[in-house]
């Protein structure tokens, strides 16, 4: 379970038992996609080199269908969208081999494992014609893929806190969040995701977001168990509680923050000044991609500023290329939830592959929930 974007992916899909809906959504999305004109003679020559389809493994509401259609119009390659519910699911498919996926969008913490297992091929920068040297340093050239050899950040975001006016006080740090939460009678929510919730609680206790040792995790476990009865819920479905007035303060991901604050200005989305999570979902090309040439063409197309900007206006997640930022709708660009200031995100940490894979963290989280 990766990057924290839309509600649909995080909560409903999990409830439906992961795959079943993903399969359904994938099927219905591709069914909804405008039929590709096979008789498009003008592009016949091109589609000969690139093939006729591209299989894109991505998340719900993450790609503007109009942009994908433009790619099809330009190249004759039809984009077949497969929507996933979690990074684990995507990973299971790739590891099984012959997935047929040409472009995948894993969350950053899965990437080191994928590179190590040889699931990805190095990006062909000659063909995609992208230069990341001017991109936002907060998301390129990171430890999970030094020099961006295998991946390029598509969208990125944060894990912050949402609170309403009803709360009566302003939050600015995780320390404040977790101090206030147990003083209320079931008004605070933490998400059902070990990376975000254990990490944020760890930050509030003065520990590292990626804490992984037994002592540190033990401290977090003891603390979260002690406040559990005072929480409203442990759930990734954050929006209904906030919108109905049941939840007054909540851990939340960028996507939920944007939607809740947009619909109700009485809410605020704040990033902890003492730290917390920054995440990214990243373009990558599997080693066994059946249409690698189409994948390179697609990555070239999707990074042309106008196309990337249209995609952001649709998905409401930021991109790392300043040339793109300049073309994004002003309302989106100036929204501090979508584009937080540089100094705001400075204290944040990416979840590492160890944090994602750690049996100890997973067990700790399972024990907290089962307490």
């Amino acid at each position: 379970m990766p990057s924290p974007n839309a509600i649909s992916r995080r909560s409903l899909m999990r409830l439906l038992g992961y795959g079943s809906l993903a399969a359904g959504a994938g099927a219905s999305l591709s069914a909804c996609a405008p039929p590709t004109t096979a008789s498009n003679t003008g592009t016949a020559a091109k589609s000969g080199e690139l093939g006729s389809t591209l299989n894109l493994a991505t998340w719900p509401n993450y790609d503007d269908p109009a942009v994908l259609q433009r790619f099809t119009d330009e190249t004759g390659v039809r984009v077949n969208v497969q929507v996933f519910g979690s990074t684990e699911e995507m990973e299971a498919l790739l590891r099984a081999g012959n997935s047929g996926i040409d472009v995948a969008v894993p969350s950053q913490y899965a990437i080191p494992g994928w590179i190590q297992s040889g699931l990805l091929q190095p990006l062909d920068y000659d063909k995609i014609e992208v230069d990341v040297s001017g991109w936002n340093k907060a998301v390129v050239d990171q430890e999970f893929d030094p020099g961006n050899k295998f991946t390029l950040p598509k969208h990125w975001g944060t894990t912050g806190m949402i609170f309403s006016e009803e709360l009566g006080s302003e939050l600015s740090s995780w320390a404040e969040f977790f101090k206030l939460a147990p003083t209320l009678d079931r008004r605070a929510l933490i998400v059902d995701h070990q990376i975000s919730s254990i990490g944020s609680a760890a930050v509030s206790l003065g520990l590292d977001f990626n804490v992984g040792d037994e002592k540190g995790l033990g401290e977090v476990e003891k603390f979260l168990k002690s406040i559990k009865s005072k929480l409203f819920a442990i759930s990734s479905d954050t929006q209904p509680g906030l919108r109905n007035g049941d939840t007054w303060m909540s851990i939340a991901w960028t996507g939920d923050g944007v939607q809740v604050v947009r619909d109700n200005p009485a809410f605020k989305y704040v990033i902890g000044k003492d730290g917390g999570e920054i995440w990214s979902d990243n373009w990558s090309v599997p080693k066994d991609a059946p249409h690698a040439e189409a994948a390179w063409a697609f990555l070239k197309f999707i990074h042309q500023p106008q196309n990337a900007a249209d995609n952001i206006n649709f998905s409401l997640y930021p991109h790392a290329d300043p040339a793109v930022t300049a073309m994004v709708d002003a309302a989106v660009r100036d929204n501090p939830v979508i584009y937080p200031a540089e100094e705001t995100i400075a204290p944040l940490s990416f979840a590492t592959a160890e944090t994602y894979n750690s049996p100890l963290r997973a067990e700790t989280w399972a024990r907290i929930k089962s307490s």
Partner: protein
Amino acid sequence: MTSTARRGRSSAVAAGPAVLWFLLFMIAPLVVLFVVSVGVRGPGGGYLPGFTLANYGELETRLVPILNTVRFSLIGTAVTLVVAYPLAYYLAMKAGRMRMVLLALIIVPFWTSMLIRTYAWIFLLGNNGIPEVLSTLGLADDLRLLNTPFAIVIGIVYNYLPLMLLPIYVSLERIDPSLRAASKDLGADRLATFRQVTLPLSAPGVLSGCLLVFIPVMGEYLIPVLLGGGRSYFLGNALADLFLQSRNWPLGAALAGSFILLMSFVVVGYSRLTRRLAGPLPTEGVL
């Protein structure tokens, strides 16, 4: 001699598919479950072969979900019974020509996905739902319903009502009206007739309805997540975590296996008891 032998052979052939089915889909998974439960967790999750009983020693860390499951299943079944019995009684005895319409009204909502129907309760029980209505009417102030044990019980009763209602309805409907007429003729009042004639005759329906509700509720996953806010975990939630999030298959298998064993004892004990009380149940052989 020959004919008996042939008959034996042919009945063995006839039983073949059932036996095969049983071996393949019942015994084999249980064997796999047991083998995994004595193995060790792989470094990246999953299962590595091995032999250890340590996983069974760790079961106590999941004691809370186990107790939650048993407690909510018992309470949920009892409340469902209390709600379903009068309804079934009304349908069978009093509804007359409206009976089929009412039955349809009860059953048709269940053609919608359980997820959607349960999700709707989030809004009904939440701040802007029933509590708001009661507060406006001045009946209750600051009532909190969502993500409470009460909400979980509501979810159970709502979702499992038909499983309780239908067996009771069938057993009530089968009662020969002349038996109750005779009871009346012999001087019994309505309450005595109900207690001494109707209730004992509907016992098989009640007992099998209870079993039909109790068992699936023990495996419930959705209701504690949606209406309990993930605060009162059931065994199903603990298992989903172990297999899908912490990827600790051996502990998950040990937990699932122990629970299946416990359930088998409960079900066998229950059917022994009920057979003594009410004769073979309609569900016997199914469960």
